């Protein structure tokens, strides 16, 4: 049980900076997810923590100990690999017992721990098999089991679910969350899948191009993204962005996209007034764009004329791909909506939940 700290960590491969001034403190028993597009440096950051890569600058601490020069085996961590990395020549039992045998634990203790982990993961009857005789999901469990038996201070997961099919991924997601509650240990989990991040994490670190974009709880990330990247990365379908200008029209403050303009309600306008006249990017999530016929009560709705380009019927909701001038965007509307492809219609922007970003710095304006 330990905290993990990245202190101004840099990792360079030649001229490429894979991890750029990473500064994170992960508390004990936390479930931190590092998320970002592929090649953003999140896996490198994890591997630096594991000791599989040396860091170029900065410090990494596990608990209170600086581990920069500590060999992986002495860091008291366990890691689940994307490829599972099960030893093909060893049985499931021996795979799980490998680390314990190397640490010279008594035989009975090894047996107890392996069996216990096998029970937790429901792989008791697979212990004699070789990895190649297992299905993807079973291999995944063995890989997790191999980490559990070690009873490490920190668990590391490197995209462990990306090789599973969609259904299994959802199931394993829940199981890993359960495992975290049960083991009460620090988990650090790398994924490119923001849904995985949102569903499992206690906190999420969004990384892009080696730089930490935002570190926050899932809900805060969703509701209050720091910048354009985070806003676009978290949430599916992604947030809609409209480049435009913040304009003052008498007392009203409005965002003019060129094709349409929306008025910012007076109760929100205060924080934006000083930015009037600036180029901004207006962001709104699909679920905050409603069919004009089904506007929820008590919201500040701004109506916009659109043309329906594509519809995706999901049963419990409908995704509309809409066009307004040069802007195309998505809305998630009430399933009762009658809007169909090719129709000209009106949709309503919920002006209580929107985001405005500086077009130059891409930072959120609040």
């Amino acid at each position, binding site marked *: 049980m330990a905290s993990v700290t990245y202190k101004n960590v840099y990792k360079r491969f030649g001229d490429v900076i894979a991890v750029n001034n990473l500064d994170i403190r992960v508390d004990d028993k936390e479930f931190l997810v590092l998320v970002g597009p592929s090649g953003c440096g999140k896996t490198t950051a994890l591997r630096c923590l594991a000791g599989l890569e040396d860091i170029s600058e900065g410090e990494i601490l596990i608990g209170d100990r600086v581990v920069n020069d500590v060999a992986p085996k002495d860091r008291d961590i366990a890691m689940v690999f994307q490829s599972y*990395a099960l030893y*093909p*020549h060893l049985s499931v039992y021996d795979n799980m017992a*490998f680390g314990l045998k190397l640490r010279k634990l008594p035989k009975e203790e090894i047996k107890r721990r392996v069996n216990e982990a096998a029970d937790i993961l429901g792989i008791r009857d697979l212990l004699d098999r070789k990895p190649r005789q297992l299905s993807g999901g079973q291999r995944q469990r063995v890989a997790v089991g*191999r980490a559990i038996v070690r009873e490490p201070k920190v668990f590391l997961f490197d995209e462990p679910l990306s090789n599973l099919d969609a259904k299994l991924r959802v199931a394993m997601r829940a199981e890993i969350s359960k495992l975290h509650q049960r083991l009460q240990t620090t988990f650090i989990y790398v994924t490119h899948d923001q849904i995985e991040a949102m569903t499992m994490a206690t906190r999420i670190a969004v990384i892009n191009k080696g730089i930490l974009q935002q570190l926050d709880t899932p809900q805060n990330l969703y509701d209050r993204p720091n910048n354009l990247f985070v806003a676009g990365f978290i949430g599916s379908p992604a947030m809609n962005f409209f480049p435009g200008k913040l304009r003052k029209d008498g007392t009203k403050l409005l965002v003019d996209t060129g094709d349409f303009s929306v008025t910012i309600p007076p109760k929100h306008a205060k924080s934006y007034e000083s930015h009037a006249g600036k180029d901004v990017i207006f962001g709104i999530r699909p679920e905050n764009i409603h069919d004009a016929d089904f506007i929820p009560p008590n919201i500040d709705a701004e109506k916009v004329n659109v043309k329906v380009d594509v519809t995706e019927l999901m049963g419990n909701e409908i995704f509309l791909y809409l066009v307004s001038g040069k802007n195309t965007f998505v809305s998630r509307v009430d399933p009762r909506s009658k809007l169909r492809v090719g129709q000209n219609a009106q949709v309503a922007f919920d002006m209580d939940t929107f985001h405005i970003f500086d077009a130059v710095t891409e930072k959120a304006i609040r």
Partner: protein
Amino acid sequence: MNSTTSKPLSPVTKALRWFFVRSRGDSPFKTILIHATLIVASIIAVYPVLRVVTISLRPNDTLLTTSLRIIPENATLDNYKEVLFGAPEKNRKSDFFLWIWNSFSIVSVTSIISMILAAVSAYAFSRFKFPGRAVGLVFLLTTQMIPAGMLLLPLFIMLAQLQMINTALGLIIAYSVSTVPLTIWTLKGYYDTIPVDLEEAALIDGANRFTVFTRIILPLSTPALAIAFLFSFMGGWSEYLVARVVLQKNDIYTWPLGIFTYAQQFTVAWGQFSAASVLIAIPVMILFLYSSKWLISGLTLGSVKG
């Protein structure tokens, strides 16, 4: 296609069509042609080998014959007996087992030494980046271009000065010249196919580099080690030219040298040469045919992987 629907076909045309034309797969005509070609090719491949068996079975007085029969008249095993156990009535002893033992001991030790040297260094070449790595690999590649006989002369003089001519050790050293680089290259090719993840997992599990090597890499590469062993073994087993230079005394001869002593006086010993050949070739060929699949995979792993 149109003609088939337009008018009915006569039975002969139908049969011919069946024989020559198929929209899927091969027509019977083509099948027959292919089999015929393959049978001819097989005969060409096998017949010279069978001839050796034939000659080995001939009695000594009809050795020289223009007969092409596969099993000769009055077939006898006398040649085999003499090759294996000598001929007391002619007061002639047999060195056959001695030759086999010489070959076996020399070649297997060569292979073992190459494996020991190669197993660890190939790992370094496969997994680590270090100054000199590229130079080393190009060097290894170049050694495969060196003619086998090229370094023979300096080696021969060196061995002569160390008084190692006519010793097993001398030939072991001479053979290692070509097997060591080849084995390194083959094993490096195989190590490259083992996922690095496995080693990293082991490192995190508590292994150091050495335990990773002994407990993960070596067990996983047993097939490659076997291939490499087989490679250098097969390479040395029937080698003639180097052995002829290094070994000049009858009692240290390897079997290719020994068997050549029969061939030199060929009118006399053609039968014995053939008998000895059969005795040696059969186990080798069985082993070879059995292992050829792995040998090929080894080749594609190592040398042919340009």
